């Protein structure tokens, strides 16, 4: 059952990658990165169980933190960078 779940998550990660490549607006890409991050957290905890080594969960915790911080960073700098950028065109 675990391997079936890991397979499902791999498929979803692939979809997220397609969305990042295709995504018209900037925010689609950020959304896909966010989704990708949470799916990797799941993948790692599942891998931890499949391989029978529970220490992987520390990495999963770090992952979700880093994912949160990078999404916040992207938002924080994306609005000001557009502001910065658009001013140059004016």
């Amino acid at each position: 059952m675990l391997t079936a779940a890991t397979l499902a998550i791999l498929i979803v990660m692939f979809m997220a990658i397609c969305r990042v490549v295709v995504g018209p607006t900037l925010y689609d890409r950020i959304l896909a990165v966010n989704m990708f991050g949470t799916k990797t957290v799941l993948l790692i905890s599942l891998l931890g169980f499949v391989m029978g080594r529970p220490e992987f969960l520390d990495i999963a915790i770090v992952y979700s933190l880093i994912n949160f911080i990078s999404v916040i960073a992207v938002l924080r700098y994306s609005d000001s960078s557009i502001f910065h950028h658009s001013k140059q065109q004016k």
Partner: protein
Amino acid sequence: MDTLIETSSFLFLLIGSFLCISGGVGILKFPDFYTRMHAVGVTETLATAMILIGLMLQNPDALVLLKLLFILLLTLLIGPTASHALAQAAIKNGLKPELHKK
């Protein structure tokens, strides 16, 4: 007794991965950014919770349970906030949702 735990964890994992896939399909199929946002936001938190609970039932070792609980609480806290921040930034920068679609 343990067959019950086994089947329930099996069930949780099944539902969790199905939700994941629905989220994935949602992110590709939906036309507009906000509908995609809705699809991902909902399934992301729920599917993660489902799969984590499924994992919890799998192995009753104390430390592992504690860590899994941490991850569960963390994702429940982080998921909605990230989606909120994303939506707020999108609206502020003038990404108008397409309301007139058929």
